[in-house]
């Protein structure tokens, strides 16, 4: 395609997984897309702008792939972009093949396939630093001469590389050059022609030879679905074509790899020399320790435990600081609004208390993401997949499900997106359906709140962090049997291969780690300012209104009646006088009685009471029920909701600051358990299990709907919520039996 001066040229970045495409993309465009040291970080295309001398160009970052034989959705994006078949895109003007300099031959396989699409190419020899350290010497001039395209060595993690790459790109746009494609043997050419002749006319005109080869060589070609070619006819034609290849003595499924590697070996003859065997053993010796047959799993468990212990202990002082600031702000602002009780309540009980109670957990989120990015960037995540694969295998879970499930521990939304790397649509669906069970970072505040209030005081920090650790496996423990049932009876998935390249270990880049923490911290604060803020105000309003005077009068009459019954010697006037007194015992009793009477007959209170019977078997009172109901859009909302409830209910006062204390003091007001504590351990664990299993996240449902359809989103919501309810009830009932 020729370039017009108005349209910025399109440059596509392609290459094998985990070789630094996104790092290079970020370097060239100044953007900040996620990078990580394991294959499959990027799963959809990302577009950025880069300045090349006098003009702009569009740079497209793509998922990594070993070949154009696109089996999974993310790989298909690559093929579609390169062939210009993606709606709204044109064929790129230039393709930048990012190549791992330490593994030249294998990386050039993809380049050789792309050569058939006749798109001008530049080859970036990335990870040049590692090649040098391994004592690998590549004669780039000679390589460039033999491949007939520009070659540029690069270290994408260093700024100095940017200019050199940009200059090469600018030059390549002016004088485009293509990699010489392979000359196929006659049998392959004939088979290709045969397929072309057999397929419907429109399709044939639209396809390039390289695309027809996909039909010929790939066992399950992604292209097949897109052609309007009846399946039986297509199968027959493909079989005939393959027979032609077979007849010439070539195995059709192996032919491409054999011939292309031959072609590449010819093109790269004499360009590489190995000076010595240096530094290569480093990754191997770390692995010998961490992947050890005997203690590999113990180390894995220890690492995970340290992560949760740190989340629990490191964040403590910072949390106290935020808690303190919240209290100070409430005390400071309260007097200004004393004239307008409603506004005062809105600010103090809803905005500051509710949003503040949520923000208290920011330090935990930061610590968690510090470790997640550390584990990702060192290269340990892929090892974790290696260690754990067998444990996932028994239920038919795809080996490739590991990374999506692991990212779901941060948040299910990117986790579900990451399932695009899974080839088999059914295996992908199974993974999507269990991903929301993984304990995402939004559950962390719920666990920490409850464990901090009810487990730590009686059992100490060690047991507390162990509990936190255990809570992160509850979802997983339910997910595995679930996926087994899904695979066996509903989806009927076949076992999937697990082929994963092990990345090299490297020292994490501080910038990447800091960025990941900043990104997730900022996301958390933004949620506090938007979703949490909005829902908190709605919940507050539903808890504050209606406010008829009759409620206050009735409370007053009750208090007076009770006082008279308790102390018959007191006359009405004496009681009235005490009630008027600012700081008297009786005035406080009245105040608390009024608050809880208001809240009980508020809209939300009535709703909670109406639905409480549903959660009664789990030991939830109406307040917890309200908290549960309010958290369906986003599970973290429970924190701010409970904050508002207990603050409005007059339970949070100077003597018992904080939500945790108020919850610890809460008792049953009615029913068979009057006067007993509401939050007993079985109830607390019931709530945590409910939150571990329930589908309480609008964003997750939206992404499931997008990736798998409305039907599965509804299915996911219903089955998770039912399981959550069963879990909470079992926990409470069994706790009652054994406790």
């Amino acid at each position, binding site marked *: 395609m020729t370039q017009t001066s108005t349209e910025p040229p399109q440059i596509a970045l392609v290459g094998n997984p985990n070789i630094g495409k996104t790092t290079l993309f970020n370097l060239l465009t100044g953007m900040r897309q996620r990078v990580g040291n394991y294959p499959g970080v990027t799963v959809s295309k990302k577009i950025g702008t880069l300045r090349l001398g006098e003009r702009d160009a569009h740079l497209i970052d793509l998922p990594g792939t070993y070949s154009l034989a696109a089996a999974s959705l993310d790989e298909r994006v690559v093929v579609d972009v390169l062939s210009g078949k993606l709606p709204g895109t044109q064929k790129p003007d230039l393709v930048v093949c990012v190549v791992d300099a330490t593994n030249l031959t*294998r990386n050039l396989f993809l380049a050789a396939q792309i050569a058939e699409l006749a798109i001008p190419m530049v080859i970036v020899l990335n990870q040049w630093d590692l090649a040098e350290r391994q004592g690998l010497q590549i004669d780039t001039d000679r390589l460039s001469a033999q491949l007939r395209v520009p070659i540029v060595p690069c270290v994408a993690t260093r700024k100095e590389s940017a200019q050199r790459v940009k200059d090469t790109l600018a030059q390549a746009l002016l004088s485009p050059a293509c990699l010489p494609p392979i000359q196929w043997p006659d049998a392959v050419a004939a088979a290709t022609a045969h397929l072309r002749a057999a397929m419907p006319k429109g399709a044939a005109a639209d396809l390039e030879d390289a695309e027809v080869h996909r039909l010929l060589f790939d066992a399950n070609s992604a292209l097949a679905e897109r052609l309007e070619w009846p399946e039986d006819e297509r199968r027959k034609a493909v079989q005939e074509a393959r027979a032609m290849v077979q007849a010439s003595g070539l195995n059709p499924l192996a032919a491409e790899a054999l011939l292309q590697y031959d072609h590449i070996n010819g093109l790269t003859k004499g360009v590489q020399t190995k000076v010595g065997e240096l530094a290569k053993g480093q990754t*191997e010796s770390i692995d010998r320790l961490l992947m050890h047959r005997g203690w590999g799993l113990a180390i894995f468990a220890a690492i995970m435990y340290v992560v949760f212990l740190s989340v629990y202990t490191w964040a403590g002082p910072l949390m106290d600081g935020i808690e303190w600031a919240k209290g100070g702000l409430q005390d400071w602002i309260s007097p200004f609004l004393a004239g307008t009780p409603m506004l005062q309540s809105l600010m103090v009980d809803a905005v500051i208390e509710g949003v503040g109670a949520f923000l208290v957990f920011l330090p935990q989120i930061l610590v968690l993401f510090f470790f997640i990015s550390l584990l990702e960037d060192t290269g340990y995540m892929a090892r974790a997949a290696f260690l754990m694969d067998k444990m996932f295998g028994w239920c038919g879970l795809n*080996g490739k499900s590991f990374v999506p499930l692991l990212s779901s521990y941060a948040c299910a939304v990117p986790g579900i997106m990451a399932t695009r790397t899974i080839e088999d649509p059914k295996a992908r669906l199974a993974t999507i359906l269990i991903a929301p069970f993984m304990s995402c970072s939004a559950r962390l505040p719920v666990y920490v709140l409850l464990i901090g209030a009810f487990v730590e005081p009686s059992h100490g920090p060690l047991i507390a962090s162990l509990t936190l650790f255990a809570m992160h496996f509850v979802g997983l423990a339910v997910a595995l049997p679930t996926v087994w049932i899904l695979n066996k009876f509903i989806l009927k998935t076949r*076992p999937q291969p*697990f*082929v994963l390249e*092990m990345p090299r270990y490297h020292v994490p880049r501080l910038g990447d780690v800091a960025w990941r923490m900043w990104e997730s911290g900022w996301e958390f604060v933004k949620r506090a300012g938007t979703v949490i803020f909005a829902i908190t105000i709605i919940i507050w309003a539903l808890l504050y209104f209606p406010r008829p005077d009759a409620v206050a009068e009735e409370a007053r009459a009750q208090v007076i009646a009770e006082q008279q019954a308790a102390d018959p010697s007191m006359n009405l006037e004496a009681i009235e006088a005490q009630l008027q007194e600012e700081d008297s015992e009786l005035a406080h009793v009245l105040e608390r009685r009024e608050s809880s009477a208001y809240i009980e007959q508020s809209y939300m209170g009535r709703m909670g009471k109406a639905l409480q019977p549903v959660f009664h078997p789990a030991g939830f009172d109406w307040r917890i029920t309200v908290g549960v109901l309010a958290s369906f859009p986003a599970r973290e909302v429970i924190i701010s909701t409970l904050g508002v409830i207990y603050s409005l209910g007059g339970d949070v006062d100077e003597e018992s600051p904080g939500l945790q204390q108020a919850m610890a003091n809460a008792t049953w007001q009615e029913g068979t358990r009057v006067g007993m504590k509401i939050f007993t351990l079985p109830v607390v664990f019931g709530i945590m299990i409910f939150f571990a299993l329930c589908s309480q996240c609008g964003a997750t449902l939206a992404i499931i709907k997008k990736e798998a359809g409305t039907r599965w989103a509804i299915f996911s919501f219903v089955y998770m919520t039912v399981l959550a309810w069963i879990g909470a009830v079992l926990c409470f009932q069994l706790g009652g039996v054994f406790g």
Partner: protein
Amino acid sequence: MTATLSELPIGQSARIKAYEKGSHTEQRLMVMGLLPGVEVRKIRVAPLGDPIAVEFAGSCVSLRRREAIGVLLETPA
């Protein structure tokens, strides 16, 4: 009986002879450079016995035993 990659002892290497007929990962492994004639070394087995990790031509790849069974090795004469 021919030796397969699955049976290769840890730390040993061998040359790939061919793939079992109908191996569903043949294409993918070949694309990654695991071609007949290539020397492959088994570097480790996961603590639970599966998957295994192999090294060839500078890459380190892990795969499950059921896939490794499909990779036939040349037995040293």
